[in-house]
Every structure is written in C-alpha cells, then in structure tokens.
C-alpha cells in the first residue's frame, strides 16, 4: 500500500472511531481513548530507536515530560504576558498568546528533538548499554531541574486550565482526542516510511552488527542521531497536550517511570520489527490497564505490565507480531 493510501486509511479509521464515540455520547470513551492513543504514539516513538536500531531508551519519560513542560511553560507565558513583557510588546504578544495547542505540539516536538540530538551526540558513540544508562541519567537530571524551576511550578506543580468548549468538537476532550488521532497517524506513517526506506535498512544493520554496518558504508552515528531525534520529537509531541488533558502537572508524575516501562513493554510485547507491533502492544496493554485500574487498582495493573514484559521477553521475544508470523508460516506448511 502506498503511503498516501495508508494515511487515508488510517484517517478514515480514526474518523469512524471518533464519530462512533460521539454517537455513544459518553465522554469517558474519549478520556480512555485519549490515553490509549497516547500510548500508541509513545510505543511507536520508542520503537524507532529501540526496536529498529537496538538502542534502548530507559528515559523515555524524560522526552514525554519535555513535551509536557514546554506546554506548561508556554501556557504560563501566555497567562503572564503582562508581567513578562515590556509595554511596547504587550499588544503583539497578546495577539500571539495563548498559543493554540497544535502550535504547542510542534514546539514541544522541536524542543524534545533538540534535546535528543544533544544527548545523542554525547552518548551515542558509546556502547548501547551506556546509552541506555545515560538515558536514565538524563531523565533524573531533567526531573531535578524541572522540580527546582519555579516558573513551571517546581515540585508543587502547575495548574493548567483548558477552555471548556471548542467550536465543532464541543467538549474539549473531543478536541484532544482528535489531536491525538492526528499524532497517531503521523507516528505510524513515520514509522512505516522509515521501515520501508533505505533508512530502515540502515537502522536494522545498526541493530544487527554496528561494526559490520560501518564497514559496509553505513554512517552509524548519523543514523542513530536521526533515530534519537525522531523518537524524542514524537515523545515530546505526545506530551504536549497532556497538561490540558489532566489539568495539573507535577514533576514526579510527568517523569514517572511507568511511562518508560509502558513504552518498552508495549513495543516488545507487540513486536519490535514492524510499525504495527507497538500499535498492537499499546492497544492491548493500554486497554487492559484501563480495565484493571477501574476494576482492581492501578498498582496491580503496573505489576501485570511488568510481569507481561518479563514473560514476553523470555518466551515470545518477537512479540505478538512474531507469534502471528510463525503461526501463519506453519499454517502454510513446511515448504513455505
């Protein structure tokens, strides 16, 4: 399927979903759906660096949080224009601020991508394991800085009040839902494009054998940087609407380790070699988590996520996609 057709198909599915939810009339569907969609973006983002290139990012929560806090920052600027700018700038600044959410998303992506570039430049020349540990280190350093930054609320947190109604969509959550749908289409399309391109081949060689890749002419550092930037940017974009979704952000929840664990678990359970894997993993796991949170408790669903991750990593390393591939090739018979 060519890319424009792919985008169209995904968009149609998204539109059907949106209107179906709207027909049901219960806003809860949009709230829960937003979370599931967010995780699809995050798992896909993680997989571009982790699954395609083989470089594990334990600190994904940091890039998500960069998105969250860049929104908080810009929102706060928008609220305090009168305090922050000299008089002669007030008129134009009031025109610019408050920035619409799509703009915030783009800015968040840019900031997160830039941070990814910087961090990648520092650490990607080392072995994969050092990169993984460095990502954890980065997450903690960033969290400490944000917790000490009073402009965005520091450790006490910040309240972000979204508008209650938006034209056409009605309740604000529906607007957020559609925005996240757009991000899902963007993320899946990006992953699929990469997978099918020369870039995807290059990423796979890095995952398989980096020395051999270099000897074959693959510019490994450059490709790894690209992967880090794309991955980081997608995470940041997924985080940008979050303050408006949740209303109150503070560092320990924005930087929560469970975001990192979920991104990894969903990708590995779904299958890391293809764009569909993280999506399947996210759909399954996130839906399961929603069910468990409502029926049992949120701590238990984290436990189950962790156990599933361990189980899949040991027993089904190629994930659900891999299981499906081996079932279908067995069905075709030994001569396939």
């Amino acid at each position, binding site marked *: 399927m060519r890319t424009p057709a792919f985008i169209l198909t995904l968009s149609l599915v998204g539109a059907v979903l949106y209107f179906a939810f709207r027909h049901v009339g219960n806003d809860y569907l949009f709230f829960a759906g937003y979370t599931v969609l967010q995780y699809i973006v995050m798992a896909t983002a993680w997989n571009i660096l982790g699954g395609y290139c083989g470089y594990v990012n334990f600190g994904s929560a940091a890039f998500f949080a960069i998105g969250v806090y860049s929104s908080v920052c810009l929102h706060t600027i928008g609220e305090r224009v009168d305090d922050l700018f000299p008089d002669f700038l007030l008129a134009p600044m009031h025109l610019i601020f408050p920035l619409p959410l799509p703009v915030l998303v783009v800015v968040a992506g840019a900031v997160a991508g830039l941070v990814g570039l910087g961090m990648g430049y520092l650490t990607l020349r080392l072995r994969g394991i050092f990169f993984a540990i460095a990502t954890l280190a980065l997450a903690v350093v960033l969290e400490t800085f944000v917790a000490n930054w009073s402009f965005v609320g520091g450790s006490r947190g910040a309240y972000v009040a979204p508008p209650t109604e938006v034209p056409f969509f009605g309740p604000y959550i529906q607007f957020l839902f559609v925005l996240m749908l757009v991000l899902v289409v963007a993320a899946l399309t990006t992953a699929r494009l990469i997978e099918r391109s020369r870039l995807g081949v290059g990423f796979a060689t890095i*995952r*398989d054998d980096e020395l051999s*890749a270099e000897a074959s002419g693959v510019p490994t550092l450059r490709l790894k940087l690209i992967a880090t930037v794309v991955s980081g940017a997608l995470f940041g974009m997924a985080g940008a609407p979050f303050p408006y979704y949740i209303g109150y952000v503070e560092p320990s929840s924005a930087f929560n380790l469970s975001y990192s664990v979920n991104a990894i678990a969903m990708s590995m359970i779904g299958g890391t070699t293809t764009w569909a894997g993280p999506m399947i993993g996210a759909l399954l796991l996130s839906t399961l988590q929603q069910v468990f949170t409502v029926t049992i408790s949120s701590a238990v669903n984290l436990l189950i996520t962790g156990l599933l991750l361990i189980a899949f990593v040991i027993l089904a390393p190629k994930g659900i996609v891999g299981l499906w591939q081996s079932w279908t090739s067995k069905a075709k018979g030994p001569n396939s």
Partner: protein
Amino acid sequence: MTQPILHIDQLGKRFGGFVALDGVELSVPQGQRLGLIGPNGSGKSTLVNCICGTLQNESGSVTFDGKKVDGMPAHKRTRLGLARSFQLPRPFRSMTVAENIRVPLLYTVNARPGSHLAHAELDDRCMELLGLVTLQDKASKYTTDLTQVEMRKLELARAMAAEPKLLIADESMAGLSHSEVEDIVALLIRMNARGITIIMIEHIMSAVMTFSQRLVVLVNGKKIADGNPQDVIQDKDVVGAYLGT
C-alpha cells in the same frame, strides 16, 4: 610513478599495557597482490582494523589513495574505496543473504557521487555478486541458515559489493575445501586483473604463495619481512617465528 594506494607510516596501537602494533611501515602500490602472514596474535587483524577505521590508531598515520584517513570513521573509508571482510564473519542476522549484499550497495555504491543504482539494477547486482561466490541459490535464505563456509563467502561478497579500490580479505578461506580455496584465489586474481589492489591475510600457505606478488610477515606487532614471496619464506627469522622447519 603514481602514488601508492595505501601508505602506512609508523603505525602504533596499544590495548592498555599491551602493544599490538609497533611502528609498522607499509607502502602498497596500486594493483598489487599482497600477502600478509604471521602467527596468531601477531596483530594482523588489528592492523586491518586500524587501516579500515574499525579501530583508531594512536600513533603514526594511514594514507589511502592520497588522503590521510586518520580519525576518519570506517564508513567514510569504505566509501573512499577501502573494503574488508571480517575474520569472524559478521553478517546481518535479521536479513536474508541477498539483503545483506544490498547494504553496501545502498550505502556505499549509492552514496558515491555520480553512481546510483536504481531498484532493478540493485537486484541484478546482488545476484551477480552472489554468483561470483556461488551463493546465488541461497539468496533468500537467512544468514542463520548458512554454514560457516557459506558465511565466509558472504563476507567476501559483501566486501566486493562495495566496489573497492583496495580489498582486504581477512582469513576468508579458513575451512574451505581445496577446490573452494582454488576458486576463491582465482576469483581474487580476476578481481585484481580488473585493477583492484588486494591484501590477503591467510594461514593457508598454498593460497598465499599462489596469489601473492609480495609477502609481508608480521610478528608481535612488528614487520619482520617484506619482499618477494620465495625469498621471504626462506628468511630464517620468518622460518623461526612462524613457518617452522
């Protein structure tokens, strides 16, 4: 008299306290067939790694085709025309044999200004290269299904796919049968006839003697002999250190 295609000047490499290469000097004219021999651990693979950029040398310099390549990453050197096969084969395990060959085509050949293989041409070139090492029947097999010998041939084909000016074949014939060794030697000589300089690192003396126009011996990181193969194998230092009586 044109410049040598490879010039190594006082190359030094240490691993902690261990001196792997000690002041190695080597000048290779274009088009030569050079054999490099020496006992295990003498530094042959380290030398290859330093020439190709897999490792960076600490002292001395490497000049390839007139350019100083010290500090240059390996992929740039490959694109300049320096290719090598790995002593222990390093295939891309998630890919098929044909896909393995596509990598240097995509990233080396297609990365050079002026040369660009279109999609169909890529496939043709893959099969052509696989045919040279008689692996064409295994094109769609995964590398995990190959025998050791087939993996060595794949290693060689991947190096050749990069269309090098200088090819370093690092023990690519270990484990091959007598006729397979002859085939590979013949292949390398044919490539050489097309203008490619070749450095062959081997323990199989029959192949080395048939192939080499010049023989270099490395022992304990130092070059102890360099010259006509017939003379070198009779050199008493070489006999003492490596060949035995």
